[in-house]
Protein backbone atom coordinates (compact mmCIF):
# COMPACT_ATOMS: atom_id res chain seq x y z
CA UNK A 1 0.00 0.00 0.00
CA UNK A 2 2.66 2.44 1.10
CA UNK A 3 4.94 1.20 -1.66
CA UNK A 4 2.48 1.66 -4.48
CA UNK A 5 1.65 5.17 -3.36
CA UNK A 6 5.38 5.90 -3.27
CA UNK A 7 5.72 4.83 -6.89
CA UNK A 8 2.72 6.87 -7.87
CA UNK A 9 4.38 9.77 -6.15
CA UNK A 10 7.56 9.25 -8.19
CA UNK A 11 5.63 9.17 -11.43
CA UNK A 12 3.68 12.25 -10.40
CA UNK A 13 6.86 14.06 -9.44
CA UNK A 14 8.30 13.67 -12.91
CA UNK A 15 5.26 15.35 -14.41
CA UNK A 16 5.03 18.12 -11.86
CA UNK A 17 8.71 18.88 -12.40
CA UNK A 18 7.94 19.42 -16.05
CA UNK A 19 4.99 21.63 -15.27
CA UNK A 20 6.99 23.57 -12.68
CA UNK A 21 9.71 24.09 -15.25
CA UNK A 22 7.05 25.36 -17.60
CA UNK A 23 5.78 27.95 -15.14
CA UNK A 24 9.08 28.94 -13.62
CA UNK A 25 10.49 31.05 -16.42
CA UNK A 26 12.22 34.01 -14.82
CA UNK A 27 10.49 37.30 -15.51
CA UNK A 28 13.68 39.23 -16.18
CA UNK A 29 14.30 38.31 -19.78
CA UNK A 30 17.55 40.12 -20.31
CA UNK A 31 19.68 38.70 -17.53
CA UNK A 32 21.24 35.34 -16.99
CA UNK A 33 22.81 34.79 -13.60
CA UNK A 34 24.00 38.34 -13.07
CA UNK A 35 24.97 38.85 -16.68
CA UNK A 36 23.23 41.14 -19.13
CA UNK A 37 22.31 39.20 -22.26
CA UNK A 38 22.03 40.87 -25.66
CA UNK A 39 20.18 38.86 -28.30
CA UNK A 40 21.67 39.44 -31.75
CA UNK A 41 20.24 37.67 -34.78
CA UNK A 42 20.07 37.94 -38.56
CA UNK A 43 22.09 38.29 -41.76
CA UNK A 44 24.42 35.46 -42.70
CA UNK A 45 26.68 38.06 -44.33
CA UNK A 46 27.11 39.82 -41.01
CA UNK A 47 27.02 36.74 -38.78
CA UNK A 48 30.77 36.16 -38.81
CA UNK A 49 31.46 39.80 -37.99
CA UNK A 50 28.76 39.74 -35.31
CA UNK A 51 30.42 36.64 -33.86
CA UNK A 52 33.82 38.35 -33.84
CA UNK A 53 32.32 41.41 -32.13
CA UNK A 54 30.64 39.23 -29.51
CA UNK A 55 33.84 37.27 -28.95
CA UNK A 56 35.91 40.43 -28.48
CA UNK A 57 33.32 42.31 -26.43
CA UNK A 58 33.77 39.71 -23.69
CA UNK A 59 37.09 41.40 -22.88
CA UNK A 60 35.63 44.91 -23.05
CA UNK A 61 32.72 44.27 -20.68
CA UNK A 62 32.64 40.82 -19.05
CA UNK A 63 29.23 41.52 -17.48
CA UNK A 64 27.57 41.61 -20.93
CA UNK A 65 27.13 38.48 -23.05
CA UNK A 66 26.08 38.69 -26.69
CA UNK A 67 24.26 35.66 -28.11
CA UNK A 68 24.64 35.52 -31.89
CA UNK A 69 22.40 33.60 -34.30
CA UNK A 70 22.35 33.60 -38.09
CA UNK A 71 19.54 32.58 -40.41
CA UNK A 72 19.53 35.49 -42.83
CA UNK A 73 18.43 39.13 -42.87
CA UNK A 74 14.77 38.07 -43.07
CA UNK A 75 15.09 35.96 -39.91
CA UNK A 76 16.64 38.88 -38.02
CA UNK A 77 14.04 41.36 -39.23
CA UNK A 78 11.08 39.13 -38.34
CA UNK A 79 12.61 38.53 -34.90
CA UNK A 80 12.80 42.31 -34.51
CA UNK A 81 9.14 42.61 -35.55
CA UNK A 82 8.21 39.96 -32.95
CA UNK A 83 10.33 41.68 -30.34
CA UNK A 84 12.46 38.62 -29.59
CA UNK A 85 15.86 40.21 -30.31
CA UNK A 86 17.68 43.27 -29.02
CA UNK A 87 19.67 43.81 -32.21
CA UNK A 88 18.74 42.52 -35.69
CA UNK A 89 21.46 42.24 -38.34
CA UNK A 90 20.52 42.89 -41.95
CA UNK A 91 22.37 43.28 -45.23
CA UNK A 92 19.33 45.07 -46.67
CA UNK A 93 17.15 47.88 -45.36
CA UNK A 94 13.82 47.00 -43.73
CA UNK A 95 10.91 47.31 -46.15
CA UNK A 96 8.10 49.77 -45.38
CA UNK A 97 5.73 46.86 -44.83
CA UNK A 98 8.10 45.37 -42.26
CA UNK A 99 8.51 48.68 -40.42
CA UNK A 100 4.71 49.02 -40.34
CA UNK A 101 4.36 45.48 -38.95
CA UNK A 102 6.91 46.29 -36.24
CA UNK A 103 5.12 49.54 -35.30
CA UNK A 104 1.93 47.50 -35.04
CA UNK A 105 3.66 45.47 -32.31
CA UNK A 106 4.80 48.63 -30.52
CA UNK A 107 8.36 48.39 -31.82
CA UNK A 108 10.04 51.31 -33.52
CA UNK A 109 13.00 49.96 -35.51
CA UNK A 110 16.00 52.30 -35.62
CA UNK A 111 18.58 51.70 -38.35
CA UNK A 112 22.35 51.83 -37.67
CA UNK A 113 24.92 51.48 -40.46
CA UNK A 114 27.77 49.41 -39.01
CA UNK A 115 29.85 48.91 -42.15
CA UNK A 116 29.84 48.27 -45.88
CA UNK A 117 30.13 45.18 -47.98
CA UNK A 118 32.35 46.65 -50.73
CA UNK A 119 33.96 44.36 -53.31
CA UNK A 120 37.02 45.37 -55.31
CA UNK A 121 37.99 43.81 -58.63
CA UNK A 122 41.67 42.92 -58.44
CA UNK A 123 44.11 42.88 -61.39
CA UNK A 124 47.79 41.99 -61.68
CA UNK A 125 50.25 44.90 -61.86
CA UNK A 126 51.22 43.84 -65.39
CA UNK A 127 47.64 44.39 -66.52
CA UNK A 128 47.38 47.77 -68.30
CA UNK A 129 43.59 48.04 -67.85
CA UNK A 130 42.50 50.88 -65.53
CA UNK A 131 38.76 50.50 -65.56
CA UNK A 132 36.15 47.83 -66.18
CA UNK A 133 32.44 48.26 -66.73
CA UNK A 134 29.84 46.07 -65.04
CA UNK A 135 28.90 44.78 -68.52
CA UNK A 136 32.50 43.66 -69.07
CA UNK A 137 32.49 41.85 -65.71
CA UNK A 138 29.34 40.00 -66.79
CA UNK A 139 31.05 38.96 -70.06
CA UNK A 140 34.03 37.72 -68.05
CA UNK A 141 32.30 35.96 -65.16
CA UNK A 142 28.74 35.03 -66.11
CA UNK A 143 27.69 31.80 -67.75
CA UNK A 144 27.38 32.44 -71.48
CA UNK A 145 29.61 35.55 -71.32
CA UNK A 146 31.70 36.05 -74.43
CA UNK A 147 35.03 37.19 -72.95
CA UNK A 148 37.44 34.24 -72.73
CA UNK A 149 40.64 36.07 -73.75
CA UNK A 150 41.95 39.47 -72.66
CA UNK A 151 42.10 40.49 -76.33
CA UNK A 152 38.30 40.07 -76.44
CA UNK A 153 38.21 43.14 -74.18
CA UNK A 154 40.92 44.95 -76.18
CA UNK A 155 43.50 44.44 -73.44
CA UNK A 156 46.94 42.95 -74.00
CA UNK A 157 49.02 41.99 -70.98
CA UNK A 158 52.82 41.79 -71.44
CA UNK A 159 53.35 38.93 -68.93
CA UNK A 160 50.43 36.87 -70.21
CA UNK A 161 51.37 35.16 -73.51
CA UNK A 162 48.39 32.75 -73.39
CA UNK A 163 46.00 35.74 -73.46
CA UNK A 164 43.54 33.58 -71.47
CA UNK A 165 41.50 35.28 -68.71
CA UNK A 166 42.20 33.37 -65.49
CA UNK A 167 39.02 33.91 -63.51
CA UNK A 168 39.41 33.76 -59.74
CA UNK A 169 36.26 33.35 -57.70
CA UNK A 170 35.20 32.17 -54.24
CA UNK A 171 33.71 28.93 -52.96
CA UNK A 172 29.94 29.05 -53.31
CA UNK A 173 29.10 29.30 -49.59
CA UNK A 174 30.88 32.60 -49.21
CA UNK A 175 28.87 35.79 -48.74
CA UNK A 176 31.26 37.53 -51.12
CA UNK A 177 30.37 35.00 -53.83
CA UNK A 178 26.65 35.48 -53.23
CA UNK A 179 26.83 39.27 -53.27
CA UNK A 180 29.01 39.43 -56.41
CA UNK A 181 26.58 37.04 -58.11
CA UNK A 182 23.45 39.03 -57.27
CA UNK A 183 24.93 42.53 -57.78
CA UNK A 184 27.17 42.02 -60.83
CA UNK A 185 25.86 38.96 -62.68
CA UNK A 186 22.23 39.64 -61.85
CA UNK A 187 19.68 37.56 -59.94
CA UNK A 188 19.50 33.91 -60.99
CA UNK A 189 22.53 34.09 -63.28
CA UNK A 190 25.32 31.59 -62.71
CA UNK A 191 29.07 31.87 -62.81
CA UNK A 192 30.90 30.49 -65.84
CA UNK A 193 32.48 27.11 -65.11
CA UNK A 194 36.26 26.80 -64.92
CA UNK A 195 37.07 29.55 -62.42
CA UNK A 196 39.59 29.00 -59.62
CA UNK A 197 37.50 29.01 -56.45
CA UNK A 198 39.50 30.22 -53.45
CA UNK A 199 38.56 29.46 -49.85
CA UNK A 200 39.59 32.79 -48.43
CA UNK A 201 39.34 36.44 -49.43
CA UNK A 202 43.06 36.89 -48.96
CA UNK A 203 43.86 33.91 -51.20
CA UNK A 204 42.14 35.65 -54.12
CA UNK A 205 44.36 38.71 -53.81
CA UNK A 206 47.51 36.58 -53.36
CA UNK A 207 46.81 34.58 -56.49
CA UNK A 208 46.10 37.71 -58.57
CA UNK A 209 49.39 39.16 -57.37
CA UNK A 210 51.33 36.20 -58.81
CA UNK A 211 49.29 35.53 -61.96
CA UNK A 212 49.56 38.14 -64.76
CA UNK A 213 46.54 36.69 -66.62
CA UNK A 214 44.28 36.78 -63.57
CA UNK A 215 41.24 38.76 -62.49
CA UNK A 216 39.62 38.30 -59.09
CA UNK A 217 37.06 39.88 -56.76
CA UNK A 218 37.34 40.17 -53.02
CA UNK A 219 36.57 42.47 -50.11
CA UNK A 220 38.01 45.96 -50.43
CA UNK A 221 39.79 45.52 -47.12
CA UNK A 222 42.13 42.94 -48.65
CA UNK A 223 43.75 45.42 -51.04
CA UNK A 224 47.57 45.46 -50.95
CA UNK A 225 50.10 47.65 -52.82
CA UNK A 226 51.11 44.57 -54.85
CA UNK A 227 47.83 44.41 -56.78
CA UNK A 228 45.82 46.80 -58.88
CA UNK A 229 42.19 47.75 -58.13
CA UNK A 230 40.01 48.26 -61.19
CA UNK A 231 37.93 51.42 -61.43
CA UNK A 232 34.32 50.16 -61.76
CA UNK A 233 31.42 51.84 -63.50
CA UNK A 234 28.22 51.26 -65.43
CA UNK A 235 30.40 52.10 -68.45
CA UNK A 236 34.13 52.75 -68.87
CA UNK A 237 33.87 56.58 -68.70
CA UNK A 238 31.88 57.00 -65.50
CA UNK A 239 33.91 54.64 -63.38
CA UNK A 240 34.53 55.09 -59.64
CA UNK A 241 37.75 54.09 -57.88
CA UNK A 242 36.95 51.73 -55.00
CA UNK A 243 37.42 53.36 -51.60
CA UNK A 244 35.71 53.44 -48.25
CA UNK A 245 34.54 57.01 -48.98
CA UNK A 246 33.00 55.94 -52.30
CA UNK A 247 31.27 53.02 -50.55
CA UNK A 248 29.92 55.32 -47.82
CA UNK A 249 28.51 57.91 -50.24
CA UNK A 250 27.03 55.18 -52.47
CA UNK A 251 28.87 56.15 -55.67
CA UNK A 252 30.88 52.91 -55.88
CA UNK A 253 28.61 50.37 -57.59
CA UNK A 254 29.62 47.10 -55.88
CA UNK A 255 28.95 48.12 -52.28
CA UNK A 256 26.01 47.84 -49.93
CA UNK A 257 25.53 49.09 -46.39
CA UNK A 258 25.27 46.58 -43.53
CA UNK A 259 22.70 47.39 -40.89
CA UNK A 260 21.94 46.70 -37.28
CA UNK A 261 18.39 47.47 -36.12
CA UNK A 262 17.39 48.22 -32.56
CA UNK A 263 13.95 48.72 -31.09
CA UNK A 264 13.77 52.43 -30.38
CA UNK A 265 16.89 54.43 -29.52
CA UNK A 266 19.27 51.96 -27.85
CA UNK A 267 19.76 52.23 -24.11
CA UNK A 268 22.03 50.74 -21.49
CA UNK A 269 24.07 47.71 -22.49
CA UNK A 270 22.80 47.72 -26.09
CA UNK A 271 23.77 51.38 -26.52
CA UNK A 272 27.21 50.71 -25.08
CA UNK A 273 27.67 47.71 -27.37
CA UNK A 274 26.68 49.65 -30.50
CA UNK A 275 28.91 52.53 -29.49
CA UNK A 276 31.82 50.09 -29.14
CA UNK A 277 31.01 48.53 -32.55
CA UNK A 278 31.25 51.99 -34.16
CA UNK A 279 34.42 52.84 -32.26
CA UNK A 280 37.86 52.24 -33.81
CA UNK A 281 38.19 48.89 -31.99
CA UNK A 282 34.89 47.57 -33.35
CA UNK A 283 35.43 48.99 -36.83
CA UNK A 284 38.88 47.39 -37.10
CA UNK A 285 37.24 44.02 -36.44
CA UNK A 286 34.77 44.44 -39.32
CA UNK A 287 37.68 45.60 -41.52
CA UNK A 288 39.69 42.50 -40.58
CA UNK A 289 36.74 40.37 -41.68
CA UNK A 290 37.03 41.88 -45.15
CA UNK A 291 34.26 44.48 -45.05
CA UNK A 292 34.59 48.23 -45.33
CA UNK A 293 34.12 50.15 -42.08
CA UNK A 294 31.22 52.60 -41.69
CA UNK A 295 33.70 55.48 -41.78
CA UNK A 296 37.41 55.55 -42.65
CA UNK A 297 39.45 54.11 -39.79
CA UNK A 298 43.12 53.28 -39.32
CA UNK A 299 43.98 49.92 -37.86
CA UNK A 300 47.33 48.44 -37.00
Amino acid at each position, binding site marked *: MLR*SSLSAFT*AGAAFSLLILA*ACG*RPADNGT*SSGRTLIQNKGSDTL*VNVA*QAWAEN*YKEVDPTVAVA*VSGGGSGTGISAMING*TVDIANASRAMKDKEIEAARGNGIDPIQHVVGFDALAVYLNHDNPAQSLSLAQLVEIYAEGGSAEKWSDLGISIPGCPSDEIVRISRQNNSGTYAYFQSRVLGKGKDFKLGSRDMHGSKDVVDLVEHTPCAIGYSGLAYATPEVKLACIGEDAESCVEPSVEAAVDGSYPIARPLFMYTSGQPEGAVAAYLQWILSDAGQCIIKNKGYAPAAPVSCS
Partner: protein
Amino acid sequence: MFEATELNHRNQRTEKLWRLLFLMMTLLLILPVAVILTVLVVKGGPSLSIDFLFTEPTQGMTAGGILPALVGTVWLVVVALIASVPIGVAAALYLSEYAPDNWLTRIINLAIINLAGVPSIVHALFGVGAFVAFFRFGTSILAASLTLAVMTLPVVIVSTREALKAVPQAFREACWNMGATRWQTIRKVVLPNSVSGILTGVILEVSRTAGETAPIMFTGAAFFLPFLPQSVYDQTMALSLHLFVVSTQVPDVPEGLPFGVALVLIGLVLSMNAVSIGFRMVLRGKKKW
Protein backbone atom coordinates in the same frame (compact mmCIF):
# COMPACT_ATOMS: atom_id res chain seq x y z
CA MET B 1 24.36 -44.12 -50.18
CA PHE B 2 22.79 -41.38 -52.23
CA GLU B 3 24.47 -40.29 -55.41
CA ALA B 4 24.19 -36.54 -55.98
CA THR B 5 22.16 -35.92 -59.10
CA GLU B 6 22.58 -33.09 -61.55
CA LEU B 7 19.62 -31.39 -59.90
CA ASN B 8 21.26 -31.57 -56.47
CA HIS B 9 24.41 -29.98 -57.82
CA ARG B 10 22.47 -27.22 -59.45
CA ASN B 11 20.54 -26.54 -56.27
CA GLN B 12 23.75 -26.39 -54.31
CA ARG B 13 25.28 -23.94 -56.76
CA THR B 14 22.21 -21.70 -56.62
CA GLU B 15 22.25 -21.94 -52.86
CA LYS B 16 25.87 -20.77 -52.72
CA LEU B 17 25.13 -17.97 -55.15
CA TRP B 18 22.26 -16.61 -53.07
CA ARG B 19 24.25 -16.91 -49.89
CA LEU B 20 27.09 -14.95 -51.50
CA LEU B 21 24.68 -12.30 -52.77
CA PHE B 22 23.16 -11.76 -49.32
CA LEU B 23 26.62 -11.62 -47.78
CA MET B 24 27.67 -8.94 -50.28
CA MET B 25 24.57 -6.88 -49.43
CA THR B 26 25.41 -7.13 -45.74
CA LEU B 27 28.98 -6.03 -46.36
CA LEU B 28 27.69 -3.18 -48.51
CA LEU B 29 25.76 -2.03 -45.45
CA ILE B 30 28.90 -1.84 -43.34
CA LEU B 31 30.92 -0.08 -46.03
CA PRO B 32 29.54 3.47 -45.61
CA VAL B 33 29.87 3.29 -41.83
CA ALA B 34 33.47 2.12 -42.13
CA VAL B 35 34.30 4.80 -44.68
CA ILE B 36 32.70 7.57 -42.58
CA LEU B 37 34.55 6.52 -39.44
CA THR B 38 37.88 6.16 -41.28
CA VAL B 39 37.60 9.57 -42.94
CA LEU B 40 36.61 11.21 -39.65
CA VAL B 41 39.44 9.63 -37.70
CA VAL B 42 42.07 10.32 -40.39
CA LYS B 43 41.01 13.91 -41.09
CA GLY B 44 39.62 14.93 -37.71
CA GLY B 45 41.95 12.98 -35.45
CA PRO B 46 44.87 15.42 -35.67
CA SER B 47 42.76 18.37 -34.51
CA LEU B 48 41.60 16.53 -31.38
CA SER B 49 43.26 17.39 -28.10
CA ILE B 50 42.33 18.05 -24.50
CA ASP B 51 42.40 21.77 -25.31
CA PHE B 52 40.04 21.23 -28.25
CA LEU B 53 37.48 19.69 -25.89
CA PHE B 54 37.87 22.10 -22.99
CA THR B 55 38.39 25.58 -24.43
CA GLU B 56 36.08 28.08 -26.11
CA PRO B 57 36.29 28.84 -29.83
CA THR B 58 38.48 31.82 -30.71
CA GLN B 59 39.42 33.96 -33.73
CA GLY B 60 35.96 33.92 -35.28
CA MET B 61 35.54 30.20 -34.54
CA THR B 62 38.45 29.25 -36.82
CA ALA B 63 40.61 28.27 -33.84
CA GLY B 64 40.25 27.18 -30.24
CA GLY B 65 37.96 24.47 -28.93
CA ILE B 66 34.34 23.43 -28.77
CA LEU B 67 33.58 23.39 -25.05
CA PRO B 68 30.31 25.44 -25.19
CA ALA B 69 28.95 23.24 -28.00
CA LEU B 70 29.90 20.03 -26.22
CA VAL B 71 28.33 21.12 -22.92
CA GLY B 72 25.27 22.41 -24.81
CA THR B 73 24.64 19.10 -26.54
CA VAL B 74 24.83 17.25 -23.22
CA TRP B 75 22.29 19.72 -21.74
CA LEU B 76 19.94 19.29 -24.71
CA VAL B 77 20.09 15.48 -24.63
CA VAL B 78 19.66 15.17 -20.86
CA VAL B 79 16.71 17.58 -20.65
CA ALA B 80 15.07 15.90 -23.66
CA LEU B 81 15.45 12.50 -21.99
CA ILE B 82 13.99 13.75 -18.71
CA ALA B 83 10.96 15.02 -20.60
CA SER B 84 10.36 12.17 -23.02
CA VAL B 85 11.29 8.94 -21.22
CA PRO B 86 8.67 9.13 -18.41
CA ILE B 87 5.90 10.15 -20.83
CA GLY B 88 6.93 7.63 -23.48
CA VAL B 89 7.23 4.72 -21.07
CA ALA B 90 3.92 5.60 -19.38
CA ALA B 91 2.15 5.77 -22.73
CA ALA B 92 3.66 2.47 -23.83
CA LEU B 93 2.63 0.85 -20.52
CA TYR B 94 -0.95 2.03 -20.98
CA LEU B 95 -1.14 0.89 -24.61
CA SER B 96 0.45 -2.48 -23.92
CA GLU B 97 -0.84 -3.39 -20.44
CA TYR B 98 -4.17 -1.60 -19.98
CA ALA B 99 -5.70 -0.49 -23.26
CA PRO B 100 -8.39 -2.69 -24.80
CA ASP B 101 -8.04 -3.46 -28.49
CA ASN B 102 -10.67 -1.08 -29.87
CA TRP B 103 -10.89 1.65 -32.51
CA LEU B 104 -9.53 4.33 -30.17
CA THR B 105 -6.37 2.36 -29.41
CA ARG B 106 -5.89 1.66 -33.08
CA ILE B 107 -6.19 5.37 -33.91
CA ILE B 108 -3.67 6.20 -31.19
CA ASN B 109 -1.27 3.63 -32.65
CA LEU B 110 -1.70 5.11 -36.09
CA ALA B 111 -1.00 8.59 -34.71
CA ILE B 112 2.21 7.40 -33.06
CA ILE B 113 3.46 5.82 -36.27
CA ASN B 114 2.63 8.99 -38.18
CA LEU B 115 4.32 11.16 -35.59
CA ALA B 116 7.50 9.16 -36.19
CA GLY B 117 7.31 10.04 -39.88
CA VAL B 118 7.00 13.81 -39.46
CA PRO B 119 10.10 15.53 -40.88
CA SER B 120 12.30 17.15 -38.25
CA ILE B 121 11.99 20.62 -39.79
CA VAL B 122 8.20 20.43 -39.22
CA HIS B 123 8.86 19.56 -35.58
CA ALA B 124 11.15 22.59 -35.49
CA LEU B 125 8.36 24.90 -36.67
CA PHE B 126 5.97 23.28 -34.18
CA GLY B 127 8.56 23.92 -31.46
CA VAL B 128 8.83 27.59 -32.41
CA GLY B 129 5.05 27.99 -32.33
CA ALA B 130 4.36 25.95 -29.21
CA PHE B 131 7.33 26.21 -26.87
CA VAL B 132 9.11 29.42 -27.95
CA ALA B 133 6.05 31.57 -28.63
CA PHE B 134 2.94 30.11 -26.94
CA PHE B 135 4.50 28.87 -23.69
CA ARG B 136 6.91 31.83 -23.76
CA PHE B 137 10.03 29.78 -23.03
CA GLY B 138 11.84 31.93 -25.58
CA THR B 139 14.74 30.46 -27.53
CA SER B 140 16.13 28.30 -24.75
CA ILE B 141 17.41 24.84 -23.90
CA LEU B 142 13.94 24.07 -22.50
CA ALA B 143 12.17 24.90 -25.77
CA ALA B 144 14.76 23.04 -27.86
CA SER B 145 14.78 19.96 -25.64
CA LEU B 146 10.98 19.75 -25.50
CA THR B 147 10.91 19.96 -29.30
CA LEU B 148 13.44 17.14 -29.46
CA ALA B 149 11.40 15.20 -26.88
CA VAL B 150 8.22 15.46 -28.95
CA MET B 151 10.16 14.35 -32.00
CA THR B 152 11.70 11.29 -30.33
CA LEU B 153 8.63 10.27 -28.31
CA PRO B 154 7.46 7.76 -30.95
CA VAL B 155 10.86 6.04 -30.83
CA VAL B 156 10.56 5.60 -27.07
CA ILE B 157 6.94 4.45 -27.22
CA VAL B 158 7.44 1.95 -30.04
CA SER B 159 10.62 0.43 -28.62
CA THR B 160 9.17 0.26 -25.11
CA ARG B 161 6.07 -1.52 -26.44
CA GLU B 162 8.25 -4.04 -28.25
CA ALA B 163 10.18 -4.61 -25.02
CA LEU B 164 6.94 -5.10 -23.05
CA LYS B 165 5.61 -7.49 -25.68
CA ALA B 166 8.74 -9.61 -25.33
CA VAL B 167 7.83 -10.43 -21.73
CA PRO B 168 6.00 -13.81 -21.92
CA GLN B 169 2.26 -13.50 -21.29
CA ALA B 170 2.51 -16.49 -18.90
CA PHE B 171 4.55 -14.34 -16.49
CA ARG B 172 1.68 -11.87 -16.21
CA GLU B 173 -0.95 -14.57 -15.87
CA ALA B 174 1.02 -16.30 -13.14
CA CYS B 175 1.26 -13.03 -11.29
CA TRP B 176 -2.46 -12.22 -11.66
CA ASN B 177 -3.33 -15.67 -10.39
CA MET B 178 -1.47 -14.88 -7.20
CA GLY B 179 -3.95 -12.05 -6.72
CA ALA B 180 -1.67 -9.22 -7.87
CA THR B 181 -3.16 -6.11 -9.45
CA ARG B 182 -2.08 -4.90 -12.87
CA TRP B 183 0.15 -2.20 -11.40
CA GLN B 184 1.81 -4.70 -9.04
CA THR B 185 2.38 -7.03 -12.01
CA ILE B 186 3.88 -4.21 -14.04
CA ARG B 187 6.17 -3.09 -11.26
CA LYS B 188 7.32 -6.49 -10.06
CA VAL B 189 7.30 -8.57 -13.24
CA VAL B 190 6.84 -6.68 -16.50
CA LEU B 191 9.16 -3.70 -16.00
CA PRO B 192 12.11 -5.60 -14.46
CA ASN B 193 11.97 -8.06 -17.35
CA SER B 194 11.82 -5.39 -20.07
CA VAL B 195 14.26 -2.75 -18.83
CA SER B 196 16.99 -3.85 -21.22
CA GLY B 197 14.64 -3.44 -24.19
CA ILE B 198 13.44 -0.05 -22.97
CA LEU B 199 17.06 1.08 -22.68
CA THR B 200 17.58 0.17 -26.32
CA GLY B 201 14.93 2.73 -27.19
CA VAL B 202 16.62 5.29 -25.00
CA ILE B 203 19.91 4.60 -26.80
CA LEU B 204 18.24 5.25 -30.14
CA GLU B 205 16.74 8.43 -28.78
CA VAL B 206 20.07 9.72 -27.49
CA SER B 207 21.70 9.17 -30.87
CA ARG B 208 18.94 10.97 -32.71
CA THR B 209 18.66 13.82 -30.21
CA ALA B 210 22.38 14.60 -30.21
CA GLY B 211 22.60 14.61 -34.00
CA GLU B 212 19.51 16.66 -34.90
CA THR B 213 20.11 20.19 -36.16
CA ALA B 214 16.85 21.47 -37.61
CA PRO B 215 14.67 21.23 -34.46
CA ILE B 216 17.15 23.16 -32.31
CA MET B 217 18.19 25.77 -34.87
CA PHE B 218 15.17 28.01 -34.26
CA THR B 219 14.23 26.89 -30.77
CA GLY B 220 17.38 27.14 -28.69
CA ALA B 221 20.71 26.81 -30.41
CA ALA B 222 22.88 29.84 -31.10
CA PHE B 223 25.55 30.43 -33.73
CA PHE B 224 27.86 31.76 -31.04
CA LEU B 225 27.50 32.22 -27.31
CA PRO B 226 30.30 33.59 -25.16
CA PHE B 227 29.24 31.63 -22.04
CA LEU B 228 28.22 28.17 -20.92
CA PRO B 229 24.50 27.64 -20.25
CA GLN B 230 23.59 27.99 -16.57
CA SER B 231 19.94 26.92 -16.65
CA VAL B 232 17.34 25.49 -19.01
CA TYR B 233 16.23 29.04 -19.81
CA ASP B 234 19.56 29.93 -21.42
CA GLN B 235 20.33 29.58 -25.08
CA THR B 236 23.13 27.23 -25.93
CA MET B 237 25.56 26.23 -28.62
CA ALA B 238 25.28 22.63 -29.85
CA LEU B 239 27.70 20.29 -31.60
CA SER B 240 25.41 19.51 -34.52
CA LEU B 241 24.74 23.17 -35.30
CA HIS B 242 28.39 24.04 -34.67
CA LEU B 243 29.38 21.42 -37.25
CA PHE B 244 26.99 22.99 -39.75
CA VAL B 245 28.33 26.46 -38.96
CA VAL B 246 32.05 25.69 -39.22
CA SER B 247 31.63 23.65 -42.37
CA THR B 248 29.34 26.02 -44.28
CA GLN B 249 29.06 29.46 -42.67
CA VAL B 250 32.46 30.52 -41.42
CA PRO B 251 35.11 31.31 -44.04
CA ASP B 252 38.78 30.32 -43.68
CA VAL B 253 38.20 27.43 -41.27
CA PRO B 254 41.16 25.01 -41.20
CA GLU B 255 40.19 21.80 -42.98
CA GLY B 256 40.60 19.51 -39.97
CA LEU B 257 38.29 21.48 -37.66
CA PRO B 258 34.86 20.39 -39.01
CA PHE B 259 36.07 16.78 -39.09
CA GLY B 260 37.23 17.14 -35.50
CA VAL B 261 33.78 18.45 -34.46
CA ALA B 262 32.08 15.56 -36.29
CA LEU B 263 34.38 13.07 -34.61
CA VAL B 264 33.56 14.48 -31.16
CA LEU B 265 29.82 14.37 -31.94
CA ILE B 266 30.01 10.72 -32.98
CA GLY B 267 32.28 9.95 -30.02
CA LEU B 268 29.80 11.57 -27.63
CA VAL B 269 26.88 9.57 -29.02
CA LEU B 270 28.87 6.33 -28.97
CA SER B 271 30.04 6.85 -25.40
CA MET B 272 26.49 7.66 -24.22
CA ASN B 273 25.39 4.49 -26.02
CA ALA B 274 28.21 2.52 -24.41
CA VAL B 275 26.92 3.43 -20.94
CA SER B 276 23.40 2.25 -21.85
CA ILE B 277 24.74 -0.89 -23.48
CA GLY B 278 26.72 -1.62 -20.32
CA PHE B 279 23.50 -1.28 -18.30
CA ARG B 280 21.72 -3.57 -20.73
CA MET B 281 24.30 -6.30 -20.43
CA VAL B 282 24.17 -6.25 -16.64
CA LEU B 283 20.37 -6.32 -16.67
CA ARG B 284 20.15 -9.00 -19.33
CA GLY B 285 22.42 -11.19 -17.22
CA LYS B 286 19.65 -11.16 -14.63
CA LYS B 287 16.97 -12.38 -17.05
CA LYS B 288 15.33 -15.54 -15.82
CA TRP B 289 14.27 -17.15 -19.07
